């Protein structure tokens, strides 16, 4: 008897899942009825890089941005018809109209207004400035409610990095604030704990001696040689800043247990920088497992990627 009951439960589970899958994936009737919004006004999808993990990150960020949608909400509604999947990556060239605490109002090339969530302003302001009238390229994703910026490239090439490629907010201290990276291929690292007090950050002016897989060896202005390890190699290498011996660099970091922990490295000649730790000193390369829903594993320990 109980065997039949178990089989029945299992069969019902699968049947229900199939029904839910069909319902979830039916094309929306309203979307089918309405004309597609002006194609030129729609930010260009660049691939589904963020996936469902982006949703979670977006939700975290959305706490900051709910009250700032303004006129962008109408446009978002319109854009819903042309962006099929939540968490779809996109990029667009926009003109900054107005800056808020956690986002900005912009206009697209055809004049369509849009609100883009940027996260806390203290974080991106540390990387550069934005002014109304600036023309910038925004890479980010759309999670069904709101547009979130992952990076902003200014006309002069300055890059403001706001989220990782999995959509994880860089200001939040890595794994501890992410809900999951569906396609997160970041491996490990990251700790949920504050690593450094704000006053303990130090800035070093230095010259690169060697470049290796783990980081840089530098000679600081006072002649000290330091071997800097940048954590997960793929994380900083993906930020695509090329260092070479002889480059002048500015390094922000802090001392911990006799080791220098690098937070960010800026190449003086070009202004390019790589970000390695958040303002609390927490590694940014940490990440949760792909299944989401169990973020906050933190530590150096997120075991599963996928």
């Amino acid at each position: 008897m109980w065997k039949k009951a178990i089989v029945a439960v299992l069969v019902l589970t699968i049947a229900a899942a199939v029904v839910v899958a069909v319902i979830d994936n039916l094309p929306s009737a309203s979307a089918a009825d309405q004309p597609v919004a002006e194609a030129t006004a729609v930010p260009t999808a660049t691939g589904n890089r963020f996936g469902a993990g982006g949703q979670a990150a977006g939700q975290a960020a959305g706490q900051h941005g709910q009250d700032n949608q303004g006129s962008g909400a109408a446009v978002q509604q319109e854009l819903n018809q042309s962006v099929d999947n939540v968490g779809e990556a996109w990029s667009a060239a926009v003109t900054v109209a107005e800056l808020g605490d956690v986002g900005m109002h912009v206009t697209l090339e055809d004049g369509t207004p849009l609100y883009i969530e940027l996260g806390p302003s203290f974080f991106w302001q540390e990387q550069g400035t934005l002014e109304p009238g600036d023309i910038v390229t925004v890479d980010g994703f759309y999670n069904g409610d709101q547009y979130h910026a992952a990076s902003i490239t200014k006309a002069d090439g300055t890059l403001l990095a706001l989220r990782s490629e999995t959509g994880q907010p860089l200001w939040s201290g890595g794994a501890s604030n992410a809900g999951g990276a569906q396609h997160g291929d970041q491996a490990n690292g990251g700790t949920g704990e504050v690593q450094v007090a704000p006053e303990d950050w130090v800035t070093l002016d230095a010259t690169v001696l060697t470049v290796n897989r783990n980081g840089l060896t530098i000679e600081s202005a006072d002649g000290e040689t330091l071997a800097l390890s940048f954590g997960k190699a793929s994380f900083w290498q993906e930020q695509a800043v090329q260092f070479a011996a002889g480059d002048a660099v500015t390094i922000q970091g802090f001392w911990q247990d006799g080791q220098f922990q690098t937070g960010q490295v800026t190449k003086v000649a070009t202004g390019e920088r790589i970000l390695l730790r958040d303002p609390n000193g927490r590694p940014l390369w940490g990440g949760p497992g792909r299944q989401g829903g169990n973020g906050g594993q933190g530590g150096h320990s997120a075991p599963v990627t996928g």
Partner: protein
Amino acid sequence: MTAELDPRPEALPQRVWDSVQRDQLPPVDDRDRMRLVMNNLVLHIHPSKVSKPTLRFTYTWGLGGLSLLLIAILAGTGVLLMFAYTPSPDQAYSDMLALQSTVWYGQLLRNLHHWSGNLLVVVTFLHLLRVFFTGGFRTPREFNWVLGVAMLLLVVAANFTGYLLPWDQLAYWAVTVGSSLMSYVPLVGEPLRNFLLGGPEVSGATLTNFYGLHVAIIPLTLLGIASFHIWRVRKDTLSIPHNVDGSLPEPNTKVTTVPHLVSREFVFALVMTGLILMWSVWVNAPLEEAANPDHSPNPAKAAWYFMGLQELLLHFHPTFGAIVIPVLALVALALIPYQRFDLSAEGIWFRSRRGRQMAVVAVIAGLVLTPALVLLDEYWLDLPELLPSLPTIIANGWVPLAALLLGLLGFYEIMRRAFRATACETRQSLFILLVVGFVVLTVIGVAFRGEGMALMWPWEVLS
């Protein structure tokens, strides 16, 4: 008053020897041989006489004895290693370097300990399989099977705690990843992990904790359970091997343990010790650069015996991949001997001729289906995306588990009907399917996961 003659030998050395070894050596007849076993602390783990068919090497493959030999090697080398090791983050790694470079035979000692430890995991697992496939767990040995399962877990725990001690990158990150699996246990997982690690992450406190567990608590527990396990084996006697047609391979006569069993064990132990020694001379235990908490390797993998679990985590919600499925598997494993068992199958490898055919089919099914399901999930089936309105724990946990269980039930029914098999034979084929599946998952995790735990094709692995 007359002086009574002292019956002891005249020569003092002979008196001393007789006080140590009371029985005559070498024994001259069966009575002496049986007395030798009964009066000897070590040999007494055997009965004084054993059934001749049980001496057949291909029945037991000497796996239980080999486990004991490995434990002895581990205890010996472990004690010696303790003289050259300090469980401190500042000292541990440099001690390893010193051990390998300045301590006489230090490298060999470490190699012996490392490879014996890893081999012990394999051997205890194979021993468990041997007992299962020969029906060695049948009444009254059910609880001894449960003890065996517990010891397998202890062996893994011993290996895992020892993994950290070199304090190199491999150790640090394997333990970091392995211990993080614990965090998925609801409610108590995080506190338990913090308790074990001595904090939220692997640190000096973890090293102290693991050292204590590795050199004292786990070995003592293992020793206690192993003693009980062996005592139960002794009391319950060995199951007698049978040919596949149910006949005995040779007359079921009893022979004295000395020399028939002991000589075989001695030769086997010598051969295995030689092989392990040779392996340890030629192959060094891995030692990477010193542990660096700020630089995780990519990919960061758990110890190899946890890679099956880590691979499961890539396909299921963590609660299911790390908790529900392993717990279900362990409970099912412990309950195996309490299922109804065909007594006529006891002592027959794979139960029967039909059981052997079914075993081959189950192995092939496991080898084909497991990679197929991994590929399906990796490249085509994205359940959370397919079921966005359901919580991930349902969409990527309960739903795929239900599908898997249905598939296993389907396999069970198909095998039972196709082979017109008994429940005992069919359960065996299901067990084989699951074991092969787990082994394949482990192999995939160890060998076919590259950077970011991305799946690699064989030609990418080889290139």
